[in-house]
């Protein structure tokens, strides 16, 4: 006898319950004690259990247990996995190629080309001597303690992923800004992507793709980091001064002229703020993605945790901070230059 027997009796489902076969859970300790002591476990109203799936299963064996939910989900996922892979594999294959090429490229180019090259980019984007000096010292320091190749791997992954985030995120943001329906549909997805714990991304991806493929962590990073650039592109375009848009219309601009001539240029500060956020979030994710074989500084952090190598963990963590500061300052400097040219 279980607490909720009366429910099934009242509904006249006793026959269905007994016909349900052996869906019964192993006898619980509680029930065993009750049985051996030869008396019914009496339940007062204070101990009334919530009518959960397991409790209802106690009363009626045909009723599914809660573990069937997780198992069902798993089964369902495994069932569609193969057909999904058929579609997703070729679609995402270029991502693997890009990541492999970037990693190969950055590791097989001599340091005396890579470091000046990076410094040149920083200079072109920021035009700031201080920042250039900071980048030079940081990169030099990392190379000096033999963390160069790890740092470069991390950097290569971030660059590929951030580039793809912008490539897909900006058009999605533009589409959202133009259609309220599209916006209403996209925002819950973005909210979910942003609030899901980063580890959770990895679980379905591990089943879908092989852990040896770079695209596994590439997808995880892109999903996690694409959100801010989408949001801020949408916001930036929606915030463009109505009166300027009206003037553009009054002089007969087409939608395309309005988009490229007015909306995107005026939304650029916001879009760049989104790019900055996206780069920062890819950096956060690339460390977690080392769990699924992403190379770089994250691997050293993981080694520090796994082997309790305190020094390795701390130094590589510091290296990540340095990378983050470099990337953040460089993109912010670019953002400030855009702001300065637009508004005095």
């Amino acid at each position, binding site marked *: 006898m279980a607490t909720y027997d009366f429910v099934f009796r009242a509904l006249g489902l006793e026959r269905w319950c007994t016909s349900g076969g052996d869906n019964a859970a192993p006898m619980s300790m509680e029930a065993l004690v009750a049985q051996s002591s030869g008396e019914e476990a009496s339940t007062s109203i204070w101990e009334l259990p919530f009518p959960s799936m397991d409790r209802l299963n106690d009363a009626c064996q045909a009723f599914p247990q809660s573990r069937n939910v997780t198992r069902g989900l798993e089964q369902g996922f495994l069932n569609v996995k193969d057909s999904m892979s058929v579609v997703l594999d070729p679609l995402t294959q270029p991502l693997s190629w890009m990541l492999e090429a970037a990693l190969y490229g950055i590791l097989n180019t001599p340091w005396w080309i890579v470091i000046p090259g990076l410094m040149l980019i920083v200079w072109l984007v920021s035009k700031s001597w201080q920042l250039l000096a900071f980048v030079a010292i940081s990169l030099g320091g990392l190379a000096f303690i033999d963390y160069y190749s790890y740092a470069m791997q991390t950097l290569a992954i971030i660059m590929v992923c951030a580039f793809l985030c912008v490539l897909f995120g900006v058009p999605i943001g533009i589409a959202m800004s133009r259609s309220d329906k599209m916006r209403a549909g996209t925002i819950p997805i973005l909210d979910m992507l942003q609030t899901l714990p980063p580890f959770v991304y990895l679980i379905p991806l591990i089943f879908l793709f092989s852990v040896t493929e770079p695209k596994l962590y590439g997808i995880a990073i892109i999903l996690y980091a694409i959100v801010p650039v989408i949001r801020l592109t949408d916001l930036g375009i929606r915030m463009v*001064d109505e009166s*300027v848009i*009206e*003037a553009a219309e*009054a*002089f*007969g601009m087409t939608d395309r002229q309005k988009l490229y*001539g007015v909306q995107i240029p*005026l939304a650029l500060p916001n879009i760049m703020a989104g790019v900055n956020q996206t780069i920062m979030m890819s950096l956060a994710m690339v460390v977690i993605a080392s769990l699924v074989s992403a190379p770089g500084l994250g691997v050293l952090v993981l080694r520090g945790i796994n082997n309790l190598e305190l020094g390795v963990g701390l130094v590589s963590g510091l290296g990540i901070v340095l990378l983050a500061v470099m990337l953040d300052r460089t993109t912010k400097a670019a953002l400030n230059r855009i702001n300065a*040219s637009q508004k005095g």
Partner: protein
Amino acid sequence: MIKRSEKNTKIAIRNLYKIFGADPESVLGYVRDGMSKAELLEKHNHVLGLNNINVDVKEGDITVMMGLSGSGKSTLIRHLNRLIEPTAGEVDLDGVNIVDLSGKELRRLRREEMSMVFQHFALLPHRTVLENAGMPMDVRGVPKSEFEDEANKWLDRVGLKGVGDQYPFQLSGGMQQRVGIARALCSNAPVMLMDEAFSALDPLIRTDMQELLLELQSELQKTVVFISHDLDEALKLADHLVILKDGYVVQQGEPQEILIAPNDDYIVDFISDINRARVLRVRSVMEKTERPPENPAGEVDENDNLESVIARSEGETALTYIVTRNGKQIGTLKMTNLVKALVPTAASEEGLRTSAV
């Protein structure tokens, strides 16, 4: 002066209605049957924007539409280039109803037939002054190298020589609006819409800009539709004045006529504040006669304002002047009549002013 009836009608607004709300069509009938703005809002939750507007905009005129905020004047001007779609009615430009135009035809109209100047300038902040001025040509696909000369010409014309390479934020409000005007002129459109173009400027600059507009107008003879909430400005600029209230036309006509014979308390309130001597002109208060008066004190032009006549008479009220048009007498002006015309119209008892207290 050419009579208004002899001028060509450039834009004809016919039975124009605009209702804002969820389903404007459904309440249009009530408005046609005479439901008021307040009643429509209360009973049907729709806002009456424009109520049966009929205005003829004559070619080469400055037509000023005046009213307080909420009177529908900005809504009305946006119907002329269909930035706002009407609920019912027609807007004919050179006899073609623009309400029926397709998207492509409408863009052509906005590019080639009508230009617009905005209250808050609405320049593109990321483009230089020169690029802003040349924007109408840029929109038509003319490359910068070709529109540069044209844009520079109009920048020079509005008094902005040599600032072409600066950005709008580097200019003062008055200068930014000059760019706005240069931009409108650069489109070479025959019609220029000006939405409270000078309202955001301080008084001295506003006077400058009004002078500039009148000067450009005497040279270019565009068809200008000007929106204003300032009666002095309206009287200074208008060839034809349309006064709006709650979305309908209270009175329209020659500014002088409206001043002499206001037909509504609302207008009486408006005009009770102004300097009548500066606005009224000799032709509005003279007696029409070709018989020369006894002992004329001198000749005045029909378009002189009364202030200048008072200055000439040095306050003497017994004098009589000959009024001339192109040197020929068309009437006489007794100073006593002039003084009578200056008697201020008191703010009306039931007008806005008293109800506001």
